[in-house]
């Protein structure tokens, strides 16, 4: 990973921590686990035009785990959809940057999210429509491991392979924690990759914090014709911030000023 990639990713992480502190917005750890996944999609993989967000043939990213909206907003800002500092209005009254993306979101946000188990179905419907209309677009849905408790995901998981939707990719942010506990203790989630494979998906399992590894499996020449793809991204909740990693208190906790400063130091953004 090059230095400029590392720097942008560090800035995104820092913004997530800073905005959580400034506006008292929770769900910080949930956003931190998805940083590299969204970075890789928006900076390296997807066919998009940030200066023309409604460009019809664009690839689309559908956010599941809508409580991680902050990471989407931050990545879109640094990708050039709007000035990055706009993300700092997250959660403020009348801001388009809602804690869960709404009907009138910032440029580049493709779906309403916040209720779990919708993104994959939306992406599946879009992928089906794209097949009917011969659109070249590809559709990426991000779902959390906790989100996969919702049965609707598995309805879509059965539909997509039956319709040969090879223009569809689901990425599981497998951070091993959900709202109140270990995700694999609450629901039997493993063998995650085998589950998707058994449903008829082409699968890969990667380190979800490794941009190069993510790029390798997400790039378009890695698609088996006639099959949707499931990328199981092993991540760490709170990933990239040492004192938050794998500590589920940060699902809800708000960092203090001192903690924001210590994160900036850890990320090498200040001396």
């Amino acid at each position, binding site marked *: 990973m090059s230095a400029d990639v590392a720097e942008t990713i560090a800035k995104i992480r820092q913004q997530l921590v800073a905005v959580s502190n400034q506006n008292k917005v929770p769900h910080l750890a949930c956003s931190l686990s998805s940083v590299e996944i969204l970075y890789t999609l928006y900076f390296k993989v997807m066919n998009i035009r940030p200066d023309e967000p409604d460009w019809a043939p664009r690839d689309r990213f559908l956010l599941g785990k809508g409580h991680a909206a902050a990471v989407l907003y931050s990545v879109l800002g640094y990708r050039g959809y709007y000035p990055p500092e706009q993300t700092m209005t997250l959660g403020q009254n009348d801001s388009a940057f809602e804690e869960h993306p709404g*009907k009138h979101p910032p440029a580049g946000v493709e779906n*309403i999210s916040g*209720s779990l188990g*919708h993104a994959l*179905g*939306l*992406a*599946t*419907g*879009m*992928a*089906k*429509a*794209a*097949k*009917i*209309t011969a*659109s070249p677009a590809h559709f990426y849905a991000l779902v959390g491991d906790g989100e996969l408790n919702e*049965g*609707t995901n598995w*309805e*879509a998981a*059965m*539909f997509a392979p*039956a*319709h040969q939707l090879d223009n569809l990719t689901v990425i599981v942010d497998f951070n091993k924690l959900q709202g109140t506990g270990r995700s694999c203790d609450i629901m039997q989630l493993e063998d995650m990759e085998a589950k998707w494979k058994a449903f008829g998906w082409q699968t890969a399992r990667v380190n979800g914090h490794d941009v190069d590894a993510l790029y390798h499996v997400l790039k378009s020449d890695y698609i088996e014709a006639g099959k949707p793809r499931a990328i199981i991204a092993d991540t760490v909740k709170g990933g990239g911030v040492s004192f938050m990693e794998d500590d589920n208190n940060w699902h809800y906790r708000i960092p203090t000023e001192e903690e924001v400063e210590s994160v900036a130091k850890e990320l090498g953004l200040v001396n």
Partner: protein
Amino acid sequence: MRNKFAQCLTNMASENDKICLLYADIGNRLFDKLKAVAPERAINAGIAEANMATMASGMANLGMRPFIYTITPFTTARNFEQIKIDLAYADMPVVIVGTGSGLSYANLGPTHHSFEDIALMRVLPNMQVVCPADSLELEALMPQMLTVNHPTYLRIGKKNEPLNYEEVPDIQLGKAHVLKEGSSVLLLCTGTALHLGGKLHQALEEKGISAELTSMHTVKPLDTDYLQKLADFDVVVTLEEHSLIGGFGSAIGEWIIDHYSKPVNLLRCGIPDAFIDKVHDPDSARKRIGLTEAAILPKILAKLEG
């Protein structure tokens, strides 16, 4: 009505390549002609109604005009949250078609009865609610579905519903349709209850009581221009095959309370607040709950006297 729905949809889909159907694995041979005309746009979504609603939102987002279709409880109640978020909040032009509404599937038991669907759908912002009385009203309204750029709930029956017209009526979405003008009793009907309204109209006329028979096929938005005349009648009767809680009669009552300053002598007829168990065919079920001419006529006469 379901045969008419399939026929109309096939005609529309052959002229408009944005129209598609998602159905939850029902309607055995019903959509054969649609499949012949547009095989790629007749999509069996599986017995997975929640995902069907969400997928329809995704398809509409890409410019298609999806209709989603299955038996009413499974495409209104079971997938309610998907409809709320992905169709109503997202404000997608998807038509939700509930077949076998009200007591059409009475013999199949409470799992297949739908007394709550109008209530569930009309509470959602952006949602239109349309309840045709018979296949002729449905035929008139189907092409108009495409004029609405919002989600619409289309509540239809099953098959062989009695017709209320000689030919396809000239009716407009959102506008009440007066079949017979009158002055003393107003029979305000939605959906298949229009037929019951017709019987009551005849019975009242035979007693020398002038009655107006009106189809309010569009429950949301209500035709409030028409409703301005409610106070002109001695009795206003609402008729629906839906719970008395939250349905058409409730909508009329709410409108009167909130927006109408004149007194209205209102009689609401519908399904009482109880499940209908044990085997009943539709007519037997209607008799049991008092949704018949014999049960309602005395109530109207009592209201007139009272």
